[in-house]
C-alpha cells in the first residue's frame, strides 16, 4: 500500500539542523538500511523451529529473531520496545529458557526449539495458567509489554524464582511496564505459580 501523504522519509529529509546532520551520517552508509542488498553478507538458509512448527527461511544474517518472528512469520505477539535488550517486551523462550529476541541473531538460534506468546496456550486453545492469571489480576493496562511479561513470568516460575513478591520483583526486573502495572503483575505470578505447581 502506498501512503497518500508525504512519507516519513521525505519529511525527515526536509528537516534542518541536528536531524539533518544525523541523516547525512546515515546517508553515508546506505548499507545500514534493512532493504539494501548486503554486500559481503550473503543471505543464508536456516530452519527455525517455532511453536512446534518448522520454517525453512532465507534470511539476511543481520536479522534478529525478533524481526524474523514479526516480519517473516507474522508472529507479532513478541513486541519491539527498545530493540536493545533493555525492556523485555521481546521475551521468548529458546531451549525452554527466557531470552531476548531482539539481541539474538536468527542464524544463532536456527534448529533450536523456540516458543513465543502465540505458542504458549494448549493445543486446544486453552490459555496457559499464566495467561489466565494475568487476565484475572488485571496485570496490564495498555498491554504492549504483556506478551514479554508473560513469557518472562513463565520462565521466572520454572527457574524457581517466584518464591516471594520480592524475589519475583527481582527476577522480573528485566521486563519494564510503563503503565506500572507491577503490583498486579506480581500478584498474577504468585497466583499462577500455585496453578503451575499443580499442573
Amino acid at each position, binding site marked *: 500500500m502506498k501512503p497518500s501523504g508525504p512519507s516519513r522519509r521525505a519529511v525527515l529529509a526536509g528537516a534542518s539542523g541536528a536531524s539533518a546532520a544525523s541523516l547525512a551520517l546515515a546517508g553515508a552508509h546506505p548499507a545500514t538500511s534493512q532493504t539494501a542488498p548486503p554486500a559481503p*553478507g550473503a543471505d543464508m538458509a536456516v530452519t527455525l523451529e517455532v511453536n512446534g512448527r518448522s520454517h525453512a527461511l532465507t534470511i539476511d544474517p*543481520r536479522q534478529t529473531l525478533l524481526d524474523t518472528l514479526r516480519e517473516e512469520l507474522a508472529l507479532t505477539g513478541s513486541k519491539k520496545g527498545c530493540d536493545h535488550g533493555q525492556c523485555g517486551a521481546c521475551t521468548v523462550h529458546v531451549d525452554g529458557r*527466557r531470552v531476548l529476541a531482539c*539481541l*539474538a541473531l536468527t542464524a544463532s538460534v536456527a534448529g533450536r526449539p523456540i516458543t513465543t506468546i502465540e505458542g504458549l496456550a494448549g493445543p486446544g486453545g486453552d490459555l496457559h495458567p499464566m495467561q489466565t492469571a494475568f487476565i484475572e489480576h488485571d496485570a496490564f493496562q495498555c498491554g504492549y509489554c504483556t506478551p514479554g511479561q508473560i513469557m*518472562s513470568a513463565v520462565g521466572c516460575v520454572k527457574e524457581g524464582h517466584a518464591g516471594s513478591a520480592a524475589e519475583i520483583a527481582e527476577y522480573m526486573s528485566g*521486563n519494564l511496564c510503563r503503565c506500572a502495572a507491577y503490583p498486579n503483575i506480581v500478584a498474577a505470578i504468585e497466583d499462577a505459580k500455585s496453578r503451575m505447581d499443580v499442573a
Partner: protein
Amino acid sequence: MRPFDYRSAADPTAAARMGSSAAEPAYLAGGTTLVDLMKLDVMRPRTVIDINGLAPDWGKVEADSRGLRLGALARMSDVAADPVVRRDYPAIAQSLDLAASAQLRNMASLGGNVLQRTRCTYFRDVSWKACNKRTPGSGCAALEGVNRTHAVLGVSASCIATYPGDLAVALIALDAAVSLVGPDGARSMAFADLHREPKDKPQVETNLRPGELIVGFSVPAGPWTRRSVYTKVRDRQSYEFALASAAVALEMDGDTVRSARIALGGVATKPWRAREAESLLAGARLTEDLAQKAGRAAFIGAVTHGGNDYKPRLGAATVARALLEAQALEIAA
C-alpha cells in the same frame, strides 16, 4: 546494522584460525553486547564467528579441592545457580545474580561478560565525534561532559570510561586466572592482566592477541572464598550497572584479619584490585572504623571530573559495607 558474513566454528582451533584470518572478525557467544553495539554502529565486524558450537566443552562448571573452574561459554544464570558456587564462592554467585536481567543472564556467556564494553554514553552514541576508544585520536567528550557514571581510578587524559562488569570484579579479588586459546596455541594469564588501563590507547582494552579466545577461568581454593561477598550500589534496586561495587574475601582469625582481598567495580577503567586497602587490614582487628579507613585508602589515587566527584566517598562506603558484611557472614562448617 552493517552487512557481515556469518560463520560457525565447530572446534576451538577452527574458531581461532577464523578469528585471526577473517576480515574484521568478532566472536559471537551470547551476543548481548555485540548485537547491541552493532545496532548502534559502534561495532562494525565484517565477519561474525558463532562459537556457541563449542559449548559442550566450554560450558562446564567444575569444583574440587584445588579450586573452581568456569568454562567461558557457561551462561551467567547457570553459574549463579550452581550450588557449589553459591556455597563456596558466594562473591561470584552474587556478582552474577546482581548483573543484568534474568533474560540477559540466560543468554550471556562468562567469557563475553568479562569482555563487555563500557556503558560510556559517548562511546555508545556515534553522533558524538570525540571518543578515543571508538575513534583513536578524536578526543574524549566525557572529560568535560556528563560524567556522573565515569571512572575515578585508572583514568587518563584520553579516557575515563568505566569498566561496567560485575563478575570480573569478583574474579580479580579471588586471584583468578584466565585460560586462552589462539592461532598459536594455548596459554593462561592472571585475570588481573587481562584488562588494560586506557593510558594513551583506550581503544586497546585487553591483552588478548588477535584471534585469541577465552577458554575459561580458574579460581584457586582458599579459606577466604567462602567468606566473600559482592556489594553493588546503583541508581535503582535491580537491573542496573554499578555506580560503585566491591568484592571482598576475608580470611579471619576471630576478629583479626589474616588476609583481605578487595576489588572495585563501577569506579575504575578496568576491574580494580585495591591493594592499599588490603594491606591496611592484614593482621589488624576489623572494626567499623578500620573498614571505613580501608575504604578511603582504596580511593587515595582517585581523580574526579565534576559529575563523578561523589564516587570516592560512595566507593569508600561500599568497600566498608562489603568488609563488614563479609565479616558477619555465618559460614556452615
